């Protein structure tokens, strides 16, 4: 079945070529990083995690959101999603692969990666993160591939795959919960020390992932002969709407606790992010765009006419992807480290090499996504013909 990923139109090869070019550039700069050390990034003694870990955090959410397609299909027998389940699962495969790559490029000693397996440490959340991420990758590959193969042969999926599908459903929130626990259990980092971290992660994930899926469905419809379906896109739109509303609500819950309690250790991170401290506040405009944009988009999406028009829906989904990315991909990690444990401020901004390595990893993800979608769409076109 994989051979379908290797034949295609000129435009298909063009996309692959462009992604390979970005991967090549990223890889070349990664070699520089291996040689010089992580000093080529903007990270520091005070902000010791940066762009790489932020992308990983965001993409775990995108990966987890595949469950928003699989769950209605298999638990509520919502048959319409049978048409796009594969698109959700393959998006998860691409996203988890990026997550794992982002962790690897962030390691100071990637050659010692297997120490995590050689010295298993159940008290470290990172150990569990490794388990849930790799497990989720495997589950989505198995479920996605097998069901697609059955579809191609026009037979029902084999029985043995059912347990894997059911395991994958609770497994999805677990990957994002465990990732939230990476941050939420640390003493002295007031911004992260909140029980609502995992719920917030899940709500923003279930908004961002399906929003991205809506955009991908629209692209698939535009450039292939396979139509994911209007009803499917509309249902995804409703999922995005509820999830982003809950996400905004959770954000204000956080704001209430932090600012009504008036505890400085918890307030100062929000002050840095939304107002700046000691004249330093490079993230301030970003954070305001994120939260105001997110709130307006949430209100906007509630209006049925906006949601029903695919153009405005696409616009809103684009905004959801961008605003949730700013929240997690920029604010969350940096905001947790600034101010540092001495109440002083060292700011962080990714450097150009860091940005290119990041782009390279994203390109790997999109290469996997493009090829897997090519396989899926070819099969769908084939059975229709």
């Amino acid at each position: 079945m994989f051979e379908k990923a290797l034949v295609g139109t000129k435009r298909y090869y063009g996309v692959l070529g462009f992604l390979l070019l970005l991967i090549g550039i990223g890889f070349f700069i990664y070699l520089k990083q291996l040689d010089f050390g992580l000093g080529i990034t903007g990270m520091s003694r005070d902000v010791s995690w940066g762009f790489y870990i932020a992308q990983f955090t965001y993409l775990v959410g995108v990966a987890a959101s595949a469950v928003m397609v699989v769950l209605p299909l298999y638990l509520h027998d919502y048959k319409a999603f049978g048409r796009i389940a594969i698109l959700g699962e393959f998006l998860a495969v691409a996203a988890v692969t990026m997550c794992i790559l982002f962790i690897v490029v962030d390691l100071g000693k990637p050659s010692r990666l297997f120490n995590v397996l050689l010295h298993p440490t159940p008290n470290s959340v990172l150990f569990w993160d490794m388990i849930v991420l790799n497990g989720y990758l495997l589950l989505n590959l198995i479920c996605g591939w097998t069901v697609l193969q059955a579809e191609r042969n026009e037979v029902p999926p084999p029985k043995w795959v059912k347990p894997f599908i059911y395991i994958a459903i609770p497994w999805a929130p677990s990957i994002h919960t465990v990732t939230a626990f990476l941050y939420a259990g640390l003493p002295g980092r007031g911004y992260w020390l909140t029980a609502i971290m995992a719920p917030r992660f899940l709500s923003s994930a279930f908004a961002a992932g399906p929003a991205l899926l809506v955009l991908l469905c629209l692209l698939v419809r535009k450039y292939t002969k396979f139509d994911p379906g209007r009803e499917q896109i509309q249902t995804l739109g409703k999922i995005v709407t509820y999830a982003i509303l809950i996400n905004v609500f959770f954000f204000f819950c956080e704001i209430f606790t932090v600012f009504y309690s008036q505890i400085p250790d918890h307030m100062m991170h929000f002050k840095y992010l939304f107002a700046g401290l000691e004249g330093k506040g490079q993230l301030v405009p970003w954070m305001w765009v994120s939260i105001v944009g997110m709130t307006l988009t949430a209100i906007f999406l509630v209006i049925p006419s906006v949601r029903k028009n695919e153009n405005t829906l696409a616009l809103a989904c684009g905004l959801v992807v961008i605003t949730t990315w700013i929240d997690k991909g920029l604010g969350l990690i940096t905001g947790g480290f600034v101010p540092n444990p001495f109440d002083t401020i060292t700011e962080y901004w990714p450097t150009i090499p860091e940005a290119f390595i990041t782009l390279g990893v994203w390109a790997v993800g999109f290469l996997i996504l493009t090829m897997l979608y090519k396989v899926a769409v070819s099969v769908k076109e084939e059975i229709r013909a």
Partner: protein
Amino acid sequence: MSISRRDFLRIAGFSTLFGLGAKAAFEMLAPGELEAKLAPNPKALTAQRWAMVVDMRKLDDQTAQRCIEACHRIHNVPDFGNPVNPEDQVNPQDQNRWEIKWLWKEKFEHAFPGQEQPYVAERLHKLNFLLLCNHCNNPPCVRVCPTKATWKREDGVVMMDQHRCIGCRYCMAACPYGARSFNWRNPRPFIKNENQTYPTREIGVVEKCTLCAERLAKGQLPACVEVSNGALTVGDLNDAKSKVRELLRANFTIRRKPQLGSNPQVYYIV
């Protein structure tokens, strides 16, 4: 008897083939010698629970500086402001970002954020507190490390294995005292006078103060304590007759962020 490198490698290689490992090579070439080398030095300083008391009444700025220099010199801590070759010059911003410190000075409000208050003794605000790894009883860094590269010894010293560390920097996120440094780049061009008896580090690993575990093992006090003119004291917290217990009994002491539950074991007399 000394073993030549060649002999050792040959026999170790063969014995590994037969599933015996390098220890067998030692046994064949120098029976008994390995055990003898592994036995602790009878002169080693030991404690059930190591702790440190910093007496700020005795710690003037020069003493603090001397402690820092002693520590950083013997542990080959790089100084990015002072490269071996002038062409390796680092701009001040990167010096700040890449800084590695095991022992350092900080003002009261930065060492004890949240504990500063208006109208407090002026003397306090002029003091430079000497900060280091707190060798916590409940260390968050140990809890999070995915490879056990950082661990707590029976005697309370929080250790760091730079050869095990994968450089994930989770311990840096977990430490509420900013006591850990990362090698963002090769530190070696920034070590002016290398101490040949202590290893230098390479890129991509975390490091920190280990309470001079290597000196305690030889019966020496930590380097900072040795040059502190009595301002710094280490001793056994479990021994009621120890010097640290005596100081804790006689003086009011404070600790950094005790409310976090990490139970830091560096006490400050102010």
